């Protein structure tokens, strides 16, 4: 039991830390993340042979400070994660609540939309969109936001179905509350905790997907310091200097794990509440 709380707390600390790093990136970064120094390329991190305290995590193939790029990368990951979840959450929750509340034909349409969405290959479509419309941060957020709403919709739909028939909804109806009032004030707050768990899952997924798209060269454009892009750019040097992919890779891994730990903790909390 204690271990579980510890894990949740660890997840929370990781997420909060990365968020703060992202927000205060300009204050924290020791160097300009875009400044190239061709005389100091591929300098290894401080603890390795040839490293120095001038660049704690070394420099990349263009001599840019790796730590500064990593810090600014936190900005991109958190921005993508949060904004994607806001977009996809809005779409998914709207569809799910409507389907779950009204049932019947409305629900058929929502279920159909979910099925269609699930059958569309995610990465391939996102890559195509970015390739056609040109890569930019906004486009990646929009594309992922328009694609990642399925789980929101599924969970919002089932939970709405569960609360739809409860007494307080009937009471609100009997009291003549408007539909908008019932949906926003009675239904939504009662399914919100479940949606929060979905939000953590989707945020982790969005961050992973952005890194994947950037890695494949069709995510956020160079020279933005996306962690996925850093791995892609370091790929050619990984056999001689493995740390160029290890540093951003481990960072990405830790952040995603932190979000998942937080989500797991929330889910357990929910389950404990229900019992």
């Amino acid at each position, binding site marked *: 039991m204690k271990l579980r709380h510890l894990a949740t707390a660890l997840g929370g600390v990781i997420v909060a830390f990365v968020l703060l790093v992202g927000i205060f990136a300009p204050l924290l970064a020791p160097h300009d993340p875009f400044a190239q120094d061709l005389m100091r390329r591929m300098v290894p991190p401080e603890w390795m042979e040839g490293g120095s305290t001038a660049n704690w995590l070394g420099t990349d193939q263009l001599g840019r400070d790796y730590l500064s790029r990593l810090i600014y990368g936190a900005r991109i990951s958190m921005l993508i994660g949060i904004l994607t979840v806001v977009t996809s959450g809005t779409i998914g929750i709207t569809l799910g609540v409507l389907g779950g509340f009204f049932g019947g034909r409305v629900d058929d349409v929502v279920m159909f939309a979910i099925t269609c969405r699930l059958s569309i*290959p995610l990465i391939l479509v996102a890559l195509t969109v970015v390739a056609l419309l040109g890569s930019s941060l906004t486009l990646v957020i929009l594309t992922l936001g328009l694609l990642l709403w399925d789980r929101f919709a599924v969970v919002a739909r089932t939970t709405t179905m569960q609360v739809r028939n409860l007494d307080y909804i009937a009471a609100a109806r009997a009291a003549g509350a408007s539909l908008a009032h019932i949906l926003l004030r009675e239904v939504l707050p009662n399914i919100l905790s479940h949606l929060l768990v979905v939000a953590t899952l989707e945020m982790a997924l969005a961050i992973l997907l952005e890194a994947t798209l950037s890695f494949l060269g069709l995510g956020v454009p160079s020279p933005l310091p996306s962690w996925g892009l850093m791995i892609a750019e370091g790929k050619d040097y990984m056999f001689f200097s*493995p740390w160029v*992919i*290890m540093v951003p890779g481990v960072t990405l891994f830790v952040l*995603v794990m932190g979000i*998942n730990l937080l989500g797991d903790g929330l889910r357990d909390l929910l389950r404990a509440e229900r019992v």
Partner: protein
Amino acid sequence: MLIFVFRRAVLALLVCLTVLVVSFALTRLSGDLAASIAGPNATADDVAIIRKNYGLDRPLTQQFVDWAAAAASGDLGRSYLYHAPVSGLIRVRLPVTLTLGLSGLAIALVVAIPLGILAAMREGSAADRAIMLVALLGQAMPSFWLSLTLIIWFGLNLQWLPISGIESWQGYILPATVLAFSAIPALMRLTRAGMVDALSADYIRTARAKGLSRSKIVLKHALRNAAMPVVSIAAVQLGFMLGGSIVIETVFALPGIGYLAWESISKNDFPVVQAVVMILALLYIGLTLLADLMNAVLDPRLRAS
């Protein structure tokens, strides 16, 4: 039962149609496909020629109907890049992707199901926690990064396995492992949850009261009931894995449809992209349909209704 199958089939057909429209619309997103194909340095004349040659000057609905009609008869158009029929390109590459996906799923099932059962039997124990921790770590691992890491370790430092291409079957080992990794957490959690439920069910107490052996209780009575959701998810996961193989095929340079799609996207070869999106969607729809049917076979209650 028949009605159930029929309804599922109709639904699948409708989804197919929608996906067809989506995959067509997708490539028309930029507004002017001809300009995209011609590239930034082309003159207005070049664009006009391309537009005429590829039939892009006709109304969109016309283009769609022609494309859909041709696709229905197996003609997926011609690749701008390879100057060859798309269907031929896909026919050569699809087996690679399917081999990758199926071996990935096989590895995932072989790992996830026994571990899930073990975790459920020892619910709350150190073994259970360790297994769930592995699931958590697996979930957070970016597959492209895991691929690169494995390439460095196995391919270069240990030199055990080939790190790109499929000259021999060993070429599939690393990519299939990475692909399996993405499916293992979900399958494992589900197996565990299903087994925990099943093992605490009344019919398990009955089975124990009958004096059955431990293995028979777990593997026959509990697993059969826990298997139903796992079967559905396994099929869905295979669909996701085929779609996600684009990353792994690119990293390991496997000549499957994912790699083909990635190449085509970066070279603006849209008939190919369109076709691959459609093929992957059809595969997914087919797999979910298959999962529903298998569940109907596994669950006698579903079969009757």
